[in-house]
């Protein structure tokens, strides 16, 4: 106790720091968030609902959901496969793979979008072949999905690699030595052990997928009612001085952010809980403790 007191700052320092932090949060996070909702409902609830039920708004919401629904399963597949190979096997190019996974974090989203235009656009590398076969990628849903995939793919893998490395191979080897096939081992042992980390990664990837602007903006072509996602829709309405419409659409995104935050907190809490269980099960504690005491300690 005395050591804790000894390193504690004076009361006024603590108050000052707390106030600064809270003020900062208020000015730059809470205030803008509140402003979104205030502006969205400025013309009343009916106008808000009407703005959201416009065909173009509905189409933007639908497209955003569709793109997320395409990107997330791909991310789960890729993330689990990449994390598994990195955490479980030694192979040539492992370091390169780890670096590559981080690439989308390092590259500007606009550049990412541009890369796809250069590859699949009408003047691009595969442009002629694609138009000859009547396949549209740029300025269409496939392009938006590709761009979204590019910017979101590190999330799941990044979350799972350290988790799987920490857990080690023992449980999987135990499952196989007990006669489990590869699939049985994956479904019954590996997946249950990584499920919270996986969910956490998916939540982060989802938030990014639905909110992505830069990369999608480059490849979308801004065709109203067809290739506008929610963030693009917000920008268009705002540029047309349609305050209520822009902020109504923005409020949907803001709401999504809040849901993401709550889901993230819940999952983080569950993960911490499991990590505690994990560390408890690894500690070479004394085995002599009577079971009654062990259960009481929980």
């Amino acid at each position, binding site marked *: 106790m005395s050591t804790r007191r000894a390193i504690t700052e004076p009361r006024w320092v603590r108050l000052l720091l707390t106030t600064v932090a809270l003020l900062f949060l208020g000015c730059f996070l809470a205030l803008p968030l509140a402003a979104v909702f205030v502006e969205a409902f400025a013309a009343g609830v009916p106008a808000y609902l009407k703005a959201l039920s416009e065909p173009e708004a509905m189409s933007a919401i639908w497209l955003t959901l569709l793109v997320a629904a395409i990107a997330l399963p791909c991310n789960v597949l890729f993330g689990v496969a990449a994390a598994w190979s990195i955490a479980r096997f030694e192979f040539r190019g492992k370091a390169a793979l780890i670096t590559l996974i981080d690439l989308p974090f390092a590259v500007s989203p606009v550049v990412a979008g541009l890369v796809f235009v250069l590859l699949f656009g009408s003047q691009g590398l595969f442009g002629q072949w694609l138009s000859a076969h009547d396949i549209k990628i740029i300025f269409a849903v496939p392009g938006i999905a590709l761009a979204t995939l590019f910017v979101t793919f590190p999330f799941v893998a990044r979350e799972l690699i350290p988790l799987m490395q920490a857990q080690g191979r023992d449980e999987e080897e135990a499952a196989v030595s*007990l006669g489990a096939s590869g699939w049985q081992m994956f479904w*019954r042992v590996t997946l249950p052990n990584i499920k919270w980390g996986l969910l956490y990664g998916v939540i982060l990837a989802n938030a990014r997928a639905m909110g992505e602007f830069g990369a999608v903006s480059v490849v979308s072509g801004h065709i109203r009612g067809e290739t506008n996602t929610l963030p693009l829709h917000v920008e268009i309405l705002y540029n047309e001085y349609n305050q209520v419409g822009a902020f109504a659409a923005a409020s949907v995104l803001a709401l999504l952010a809040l849901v993401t935050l709550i889901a993230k907190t819940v999952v983080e809490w569950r993960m911490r809980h499991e990590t505690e269980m994990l560390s408890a099960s690894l500690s*070479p504690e004394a085995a002599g403790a009577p079971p009654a005491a062990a259960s009481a300690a929980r």
Partner: protein
Amino acid sequence: MSIEIRGIGKRFGNFVALDNIDLTIPTGELVALLGPSGCGKTTLLRIIAGMESADSGHVLFSGEEATHLHVRDRHVGFVFQHYALFRHMTVFENVAFGLRVKPRHERPGDADIRRRVTDLLKLVQLDWLAERYPSQLSGGQRQRIALARALAVEPKVLLLDEPFGALDTRVRKELRRWLRRLHDEVHISSVFVTHDQEEALEVADRVVVMNQGRIEQIGTPDEVYSTPASPFVYRFLGDVNVFHSRLHGAWAEIDRSPAGLAANGGDGDALAFIRPHDIDIERVEQHGSLAARVQDVHAIGPAVRVELAHGSELIEVELTRERANGLALIRGDQVWLRPRQVRVFAAESAGEEGGSGI
């Protein structure tokens, strides 16, 4: 089921983990692989289990080729050092796992699984913990559950990696007696890895002493302790005093006193190994005894440990309390040492790390 290992070799890069190992484990025996860390004992165990593949050599189960058999087809029960219990499953489900993942036509019914798991939990005396999770168990309980889980699939061989390594001393002693009794009850060929000589000597029918990827000696606990085949085994199994010695043909001497028969003959420098309890201390000089001066006397439990200086060498002698009381040794006393049992190895085979190794 018997296990035969023929010429197994394994390298990790430049490091030779196993160097041409030959070993036969007869049906029903409990065998200890004993050695310091890094001697290859765990690698050998994992090769027997099929979790590691050997670079060369063969593994035979009951005389049949098993070298390239997959882990899941070997029917071995493996108990991991840190137990590797499935942490998201209850104790019951952990033990039932091996039965539930069997192919449909072999899989027992639910009632059958319940009965077999309950029987196993009774065997390890933990049936009252069935609904707990691994994190709610103590280390010793986890160890026994890991054992029950491995036994559930009725393995032909049981392999245990440092089974008591992560437990405290008291529990370790209890558990190893329990493992010995369990082995006598279920009687399946078992191999366990340990670096603890006491554990190996107490539990195993046969001890395989390993060092630097090679087998130094195979024998019953009594054989490896009382007639070690090499200086390494002597040093590794219990405390030992090492005297500088000279060989004259089959005879060795320490300080011009005849000390005993040499294990490998020849002429030249040699090292004589004597266990602390194989030396007697006397007040009067006799033929063949060595002069020493008492440096310290510790009473440790039932024994009394005496440290003496013999020239520049430090000697440790273990006496019974009765004997020590009769001698009434105090620091600085001039006494005479009389070795009861000596083994002499030529210096080159004893290695460079001579001196008085305790």
